[in-house]
């Protein structure tokens, strides 16, 4: 009796299609990926049940980090350039084009004006380890934070014709007076609507 022979199939599979798909996905993820900005304020945001997403761009964010340090970040490299120039004039600190360029590429900062030159003279790799003291702020109308916000808004209005969305990102264990100071500064500039950045907590059961 003849034996039934099982046809031996090659174990090699055509990988071309799989490779195509894999690279397509890879391209997508590379293009949509945004480098995560290191947050020097180390603010740990509190949780809330709100699900409002803050807009992607055109945001001026004030971070109140640990030990009351205030950091500022606002979108737009061109706006940052203009703002630093205006701030340099205001505080009589002349900035070189290299320093302005460096500042334009700094996403978030928290240094007083008298340290700004020192901060900007550091090579990019050492910026992280620089001990940022936070932007000085008090409730008077002429604090550095107040001027930064004012100039940034002016620059944004001049360049893009838009108004910034204001967001406050606070550390959860920060005492209330620090938050109150920031809210007061915003109030003096007639900014009464802003977003408090929170993480999402599970919605409560009714």
């Amino acid at each position: 009796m003849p034996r039934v022979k099982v046809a031996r199939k090659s174990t090699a599979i055509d990988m071309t299609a799989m490779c195509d798909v894999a690279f397509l996905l890879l391209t997508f993820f590379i293009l949509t990926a945004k480098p995560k900005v290191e947050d020097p304020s180390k603010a740990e945001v509190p949780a809330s049940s709100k699900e409002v997403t803050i807009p992607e761009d055109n945001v001026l964010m004030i971070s109140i980090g640990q030990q009351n340090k205030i950091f500022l970040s606002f979108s737009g490299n061109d706006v940052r350039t203009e703002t630093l120039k205006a701030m340099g004039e205001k505080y009589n600190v002349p900035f070189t084009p290299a320093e302005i360029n460096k500042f334009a590429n700094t996403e978030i900062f928290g240094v007083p004006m008298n340290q700004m030159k020192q901060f900007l003279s550091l090579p990019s790799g050492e910026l992280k380890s620089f001990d940022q003291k936070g932007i000085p702020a008090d409730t008077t109308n002429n604090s550095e934070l107040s001027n930064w916000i004012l100039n940034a808004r002016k620059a944004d209005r001049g360049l893009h014709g838009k108004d910034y969305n204001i967001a406050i990102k606070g550390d959860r264990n920060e005492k209330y007076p620090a938050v109150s100071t920031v809210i007061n500064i915003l109030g003096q500039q007639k900014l009464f609507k802003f977003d408090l950045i929170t993480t999402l907590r599970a919605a409560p059961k009714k």
Partner: protein
Amino acid sequence: MAELDTSGGGKHKGGKVRSKKASTRVDLTAMVDLAFLLITFFMLTTTLNKPKAMNLAMPDNSIKTSQLPVPESRTMTILLGSHNKVAWFMGEPGKTAPTVDSYGPNGLRKALIENGKAVAASHPGPDGYMIVVIKPSESSTYENLVSALDEMSITAIKSYAIVKILPVELDALKSQNLL
């Protein structure tokens, strides 16, 4: 004279040298491995959850318009103290002793819902809703403020405001050991 080719291929002199035809198939397994490795990396590093926010609107202090008188019986004042505790009272400060509560479903939220119902029952009409005044003290944290505002939205309080704390209320907090 006619010659018969008896030798093996490619060995004879003068004949064409044929290169061996290589297969056009490339083993893509390694490439796929690499691609998926990178995909995994990018998927894990991208931040999928965008930051969430809650809106807050503060009143304009510069406009000194005549404000509508609000009956004290409709206001509930929440004092944010230390140790994640709140003290709340209805009506005017200093008249009734504040109730100390915690944040969360069984503390502040319950009090808000109960007081809201009581106010709505005793003040008929469309304007009979409860007004909540949030007064954070210096020893309360930012998280406390956010929690309190969150409770406002959960319990759907129509009207609330963050107001500066009064000395009387600070004394009340002090007497409850919350300062």
